């Protein structure tokens, strides 16, 4: 099937600004799904609220556009009742780690078989450029006209500590790499987290003088390096890309099935 067959073409051109990284993440994700040969009917995409969350409206899968920060809670319900479906949850940085931070760590802790994608543009795009828990220090936002003093979360370290069994990072610039990582994340049995650095030229780029989408993508290239690379060894200040964790652990739906089977047996005897 061609990538376009996975789109609801009637909603195109999409609402994202020119050069918004979220569009490239949609592009990379569709290619991952196409390469895996997944049936549209076997995929549920659940999202919250934000520019990023609009993604669920553009894909021709089962889709739920839910509440800000609550996409993982809704996805958990879907997955428990229909464990044979592939549940994919793209989220914004604010959505996943500000208002949704608690859902994020607990979904990871349970190791439920869901693919969480953090579309990290380091800002609240939809509401006009407030800083988020992933902005980090020394950036300008509408809520930080004199620059931020808050440290950011490291999504990768947070996800690992919370119990996610597949954790990776890529960027909108590294589109092929994103597709490869997303394929592995979708195939992984357990909670997978893929952080993809995105760009919001409209708010983050403009306020922080990072220029247009092209120059923001250049930064994805120069400020990151592959795990295990010479570049990263020489310059540990760069943001690492790659797969950080890939382990097998008991998965939540499978454990739940065992409990049901056990309870049924107890009842009969």
């Amino acid at each position, binding site marked *: 099937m061609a*990538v*376009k067959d996975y*789109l609801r073409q009637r909603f*195109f*051109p*999409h609402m*994202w*600004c*020119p*050069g*918004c*990284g*979220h*569009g*490239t993440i*949609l*592009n*990379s994700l*569709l*290619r991952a799904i196409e390469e895996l040969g997944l049936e549209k009917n076997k995929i549920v995409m659940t999202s919250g609220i934000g520019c990023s969350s609009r993604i669920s409206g553009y894909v021709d899968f089962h889709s739920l556009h839910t509440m800000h920060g609550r996409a993982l809670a809704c996805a958990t319900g879907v997955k428990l009742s229909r464990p044979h479906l592939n549940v994919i949850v793209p989220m914004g940085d604010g959505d996943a780690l500000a208002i949704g931070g608690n859902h994020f760590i607990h979904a990871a802790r349970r190791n439920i078989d869901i693919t969480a994608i953090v579309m990290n543009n380091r800002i609240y795009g939809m509401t006009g450029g407030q800083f988020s828990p992933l902005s980090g220090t020394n950036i300008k936002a509408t809520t930080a006209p004199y620059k931020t003093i808050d440290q950011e979360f490291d999504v990768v370290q947070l996800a690992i500590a919370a119990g996610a069994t597949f954790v990776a990072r890529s960027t*909108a*610039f590294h*589109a*092929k790499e994103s*597709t490869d990582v997303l394929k592995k994340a979708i195939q992984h049995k357990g909670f997978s987290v893929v952080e993809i650095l995105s760009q919001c030229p409209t708010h983050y780029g403009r306020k922080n003088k990072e220029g*247009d*989408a*092209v120059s923001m*993508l250049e930064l994805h290239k120069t400020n990151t390096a592959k795990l295990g690379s010479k570049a990263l060894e020489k310059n540990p200040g760069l943001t690492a890309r790659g797969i950080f964790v890939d382990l097998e652990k008991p998965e939540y739906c499978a454990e739940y099935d065992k409990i049901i089977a056990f309870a049924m047996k107890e009842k009969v005897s």
Partner: protein
Amino acid sequence: MARQKLKEIVINREWCKGCGICVHFCPTKVLELDFDEKSVAIRPEDCICCKMCELRCPDLAIEVLTYEGEDNEK
């Protein structure tokens, strides 16, 4: 390995928003923005069919159609 050869670069002018990502990152400078700020392939003969423009386009507006060229391993 048979090499991919270019059939056509198809750009959806309704979807393209003129962000210039495909133009800037094309390794052989095949693409340019026209007066309407839409991407056009002005040097298709230089295309090496890497498809990076297609993979990076945030608007899914560009498609690089290729065919299998003759075997280049003699």
